[in-house]
């Protein structure tokens, strides 16, 4: 429904769910509205749409004469509301007209029943699905009947001639939807969950809440059932997802503007505002992207306005957070946006990247802003047709960036002594060896120290102190090298060998290992 508003050139959409009661859901936009004919076309023909994919339209009321490209193309948005509510009232008016429409949709022909313990929807009378009920007044009575619709013409005063809008009011919200959004499905298992829920005053509070909850245990056990903690925050999660999907601006943040200026510009170009229950949504964004984590600054990879297929262009950024996983977890991966509207959520496979890069994927988050993908989107607008040429081209373009720019750079960084894993490793080696280097041993203190790249030796003893040369190429603290270093250095500490024959002994150990393997 939000996509429909966006495609209608709306500058602002408001959604009133009436949370935590959820008796009605009202979506209002100031887009171009629908007249009687257009509404009938949409409501009676699944798959019909006047919209051309990627067609440029005016943003209604934009002072900057902004234009945007449409994203939807199947006219199915309205029909999807039958899953949420039994009734819907749509009021709409176009500009330069005093006439509007009021349509009342009745989806009550669907009943819910339980099969195998699961709630499903089906039509009451299957014969009516085929033929339609000729005795009742219907708009949609051919082939597939999902409900009834009464359309009335309404008239507005002259003062409203220039106005255009659409208001969709869903009433008789389906019980399961109501319970799910209100979080009461969880209340049975967690009776105090509702009482313990915090009120969120702003969207930022919601983001804070979700971050906190994710840090806490991911699930609780009640009556031997696992209950995900975040399930009681269904409503909050819903808003988060909506903020990801929608073509919204980023929050007003100076650091963000300076680091990702191009992308902030792309997002703000949409001139689109979404307010849900008073929450003014913005794109989710984490301030700590720019903070040092465990002493390491993030790395940003950016590609701006590059051609990826014919004249279609893409911009993308990736943020790599060394040594730690991206949190919240939902931000891990890459999000593809067609004209600022997200298609699906963050993809942790990085558009099915064909090579295994291990845990590096967990430390990456980013977005691709591409044009020309509307035709490659599946009907649900939530995923892409994997065989569409433009999507394949985008994937290829992005994978090339990962393969040539991102992962080599990350690997290079990981090999440096500054990388978090190397530093952790070095600390571990130091700790282990200092435990072995007890008073009374030949060596009582072990430490890493830079001895310069020209120094060939890995270790050097100075009195009772053993220095490990942090500049040596074999002291980069990969797991295998770390183990070898600990073993060989222990021989020095315990007096079995001296530092001058350390390299010889190490080589001997290595040769023996290879021999043993070959044998």
């Amino acid at each position, binding site marked *: 429904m939000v996509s429909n508003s966006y495609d209608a050139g709306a500058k602002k959409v408001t959604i009133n769910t009436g949370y935590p009661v*959820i008796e009605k859901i009202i979506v209002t936009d100031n887009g171009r509205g629908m007249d009687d004919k257009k509404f009938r076309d949409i409501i009676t023909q699944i798959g019909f749409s006047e919209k051309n994919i990627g067609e440029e339209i005016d943003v209604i009321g934009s002072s900057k004469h902004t234009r945007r490209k449409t994203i939807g193309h199947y006219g199915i948005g309205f029909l999807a509301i039958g899953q949420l509510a039994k009734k819907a009232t749509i*009021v709409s008016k176009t500009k330069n007209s005093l006439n509007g429409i009021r349509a009342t949709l009745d989806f009550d022909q669907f009943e819910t029943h339980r099969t195998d313990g699961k709630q499903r929807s089906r039509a009451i009378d299957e014969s009516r699905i085929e033929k339609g009920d000729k005795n009742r007044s219907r708009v949609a009575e051919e082939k597939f009947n999902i409900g009834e619709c009464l359309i009335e013409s309404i008239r507005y005063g002259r003062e409203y001639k220039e106005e255009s809008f659409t208001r969709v009011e869903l009433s008789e919200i389906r019980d399961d939807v109501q319970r799910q959004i209100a979080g009461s499905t969880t209340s049975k298992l967690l009776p105090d969950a509702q009482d313990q829920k915090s009120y969120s005053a702003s969207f930022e509070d919601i983001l804070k809440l979700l971050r906190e909850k994710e840090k806490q245990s991911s699930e609780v056990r009640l009556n031997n059932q696992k209950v995900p903690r975040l399930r009681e925050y269904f409503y909050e999660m819903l808003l988060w997802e909506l903020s990801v999907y929608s073509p919204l601006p980023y929050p007003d943040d100076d650091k963000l503007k300076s680091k990702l200026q191009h992308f902030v510009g792309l997002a703000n170009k949409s001139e689109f505002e979404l307010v849900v*229950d008073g929450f003014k949504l913005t794109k989710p964004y984490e301030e700590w992207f720019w903070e040092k984590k465990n002493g390491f600054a993030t790395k940003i990879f950016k590609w701006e306005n590059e051609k990826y297929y014919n004249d279609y262009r893409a911009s993308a950024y990736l943020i790599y957070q060394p040594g730690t996983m991206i949190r919240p977890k939902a931000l891990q991966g890459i999000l593809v946006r067609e004209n600022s509207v997200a298609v699906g959520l963050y993809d942790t496979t990085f558009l099915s990247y064909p090579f295994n890069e291990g845990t590096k994927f967990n430390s990456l988050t980013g977005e691709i802003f591409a044009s020309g993908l509307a035709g490659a989107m599946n009907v649900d607008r939530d995923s892409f047709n994997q065989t569409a040429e433009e999507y394949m081209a985008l994937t290829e373009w992005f994978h090339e960036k990962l393969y040539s720019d991102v992962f080599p750079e990350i690997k290079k960084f990981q090999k440096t002594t500054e990388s978090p894993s190397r530093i952790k490793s070095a600390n571990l080696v130091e700790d282990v060896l200092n435990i072995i280097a007890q008073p009374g041993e030949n060596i009582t203190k072990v430490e890493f120290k830079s001895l310069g790249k020209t120094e060939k030796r890995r270790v050097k003893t100075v009195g009772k102190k053993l220095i490990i040369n942090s500049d040596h190429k074999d002291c980069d603290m990969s797991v295998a090298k770390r183990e070898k270093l600990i073993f060989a250095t222990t021989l020095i500490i315990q007096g079995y060998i001296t530092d001058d024959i350390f390299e010889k002994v190490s080589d001997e150990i290595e040769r023996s290992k290879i021999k043993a393997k070959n044998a």
Partner: protein
Amino acid sequence: MATCPLKHEIRVNLWRPFILKLRKRPITYLTLYSPPIMDVKLLQHHGLIEVNNEKYLGVVGVGINTESEADTVTNLDKRLDLLLSGDINTLINGTKASKKAKQLDEKFPFDVINLDYTDPLHKYGMDRELSPHVEAIANIFKKQDKGKIDQFALFLTTFTRIEAYRPDFIEYLKGIVEENINNTPNFKQKLFDVSGCENLNDYYNKSTNDCFAVAVTKMILKLMSDYNYTLAAGDIQWLVRDAVPPERNMLHLAFHIKRFVAPKIVEKRNIGNRKNNVEHKSVEFLREDYLKLKESTDRDRLNEVHLEQINSFNQKTFELKIPEPEN
């Protein structure tokens, strides 16, 4: 009720002037919300509360149930700083083990507290010596004192059909008035001047509601003195709902409360008079004519005065507004 012009008159001409007495803006505000939460909109209209893109900063609302919580969100153009559903008395008197009680506790102190109750202060049949309402008022003073606030406004609204009250509570209130008559000559004199009565029973029989109002005021003065607060100003107004029988009287009390600072001793007469003595303050509440707003006589007049503002406040919600069609 919330869009009633009489109630709006109370907001405009009783509550607002008392808020202005604080000479502070923006204020922090605790209210018992009742959609469409006109009081908050009035404060916003006069720039008395701070708003940002998304919320009313420092404004806390407590409503009785989730329905009113949903209605409040729907009827405002921004979100409150904190919105809690539950009984205000339970939240104020509750332990910090309750998350909601803790959340509310953390928001204290407030510049303005509006206890816009719609029920009696101490219900008939309640098996408690001290009602949760009275306990809550006492706890509010305690929390305000703990929050080290030196002045604030307190509004209290209560239903005054005497039969709805627990009899011994009424006796307690009467005792408070009697104590004043016996111990405060000023009070006794003023009582005679305004009512022609010399004793409690005469006054109670002649003007039960007024006697009740003065007694409740006196009770609140006592509660505040326990926490070293004193009264800087106060007022009483009645809202009489008489359009449909039975007639219902709502008592509206407004107080400007300040930290009691003992006067400097510069004259002999100050010696021994440095206590926070609230007795003489209750004299100020004795009046011949309390302002009474009646539905039967004032509704039309006040509609003319306030309807435009009420309607414009009603339009102020976060939802996009679409016009009403002619047919």
